[in-house]
């Protein structure tokens, strides 16, 4: 019981003390954004016209980009009707 309690407290402490501050640290943001942008490029270039058929690969087609948690990047896909954006997030 004591060990379980200790493990639980450890997880909570580690989450609050380390993980959350590093999540907002720019160094991590850059790494995650770099991955998101790289995945986004690959997704758009590989899918090409298939985006018009509603395919989105590892991304998602959204009307508006933003307002949600996580690090992601979106590019507008002109030609989709109504105009959609391809969003790829990381992690």
């Amino acid at each position: 019981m004591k060990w379980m309690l200790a493990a639980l407290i450890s997880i909570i402490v580690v989450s609050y003390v380390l993980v959350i501050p590093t999540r907002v640290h720019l160094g991590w943001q850059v790494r995650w954004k770099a991955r998101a942008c790289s995945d986004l490029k690959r997704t758009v270039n590989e899918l090409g016209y298939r985006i018009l058929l509603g395919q989105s690969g590892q991304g998602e087609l959204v009307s508006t980009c933003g307002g949600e948690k996580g690090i992601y990047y979106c590019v507008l896909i002109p030609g989709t009707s109504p105009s959609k954006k391809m969003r790829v997030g990381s992690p």
Partner: protein
Amino acid sequence: MKELVLILIALLTASFLVNVPRSDEDWFLYMGELRMYEMSAEADTLKARSLIFARSWVDRWLAGVNSTACEELPPPPNGSLFVQLLREDMMSKGFSLTGDLHYSIDESREGDSSDQAFGGYCRDGGIKVAASSRLTIRDDLLGIKARRYFDVGACQPTAYFLIREVLTGLRHRTIEIVRKAFSSEENVTAAPQEMREELTSLVRYLRRNLTDEGISLRLTYATEFAGEEVVIAFKAVVFDEEANIIRDGGLRRGFSCIREWGIRVRGS
């Protein structure tokens, strides 16, 4: 005590795992790197996005002229609209887009190259789209820019130009056949028979050439005698079974053109 030790070990392990960056790292350096990746995502997808836009434009136009007379020439995609849409989107992200994108439309030939992002292939009489871009994305705050110049070609596989040419040629040829058949004043009664034979021969010749391209042709006509005049109403239907058009998020196969015309000649 054991719990405290465990917590300390967990904290220590986690601190190694997450590799907390040094505190003296430059915020501007991070921001610059961040913007560089974003700019790269915008710039390196310009070519694919310009082709997606072109495919959407051409296919929307093709869907609109499906089952019509097919007399118009396909309009080139509006490059200014593409640039304007991107400019507005990039402005909201703090980037500025300058330069232009120019499209042109031509008849495709088998063996021409087609970029995979457009999703077509080149065949004789199809629609070839060429895009020429000179675009630059800037982040004025950080003083970074990405320039992308490209010239790319792609083909819409619907044989629109071929069908249009066939229908135009067919119309001219039928006028010649009818006028020739009814030109002889001595033998007016034999004219419809002569005309039928000529038309059958013409249609057979055209079908022989078009079948290999996956295109079928049907020509019907009705002869009406109005006093001294003979009116012949023609209707030609050309169907391209190899055509594929993206419409409403789906890929539709097949494209047809239906053209009607009438010829009036003196019967006697």
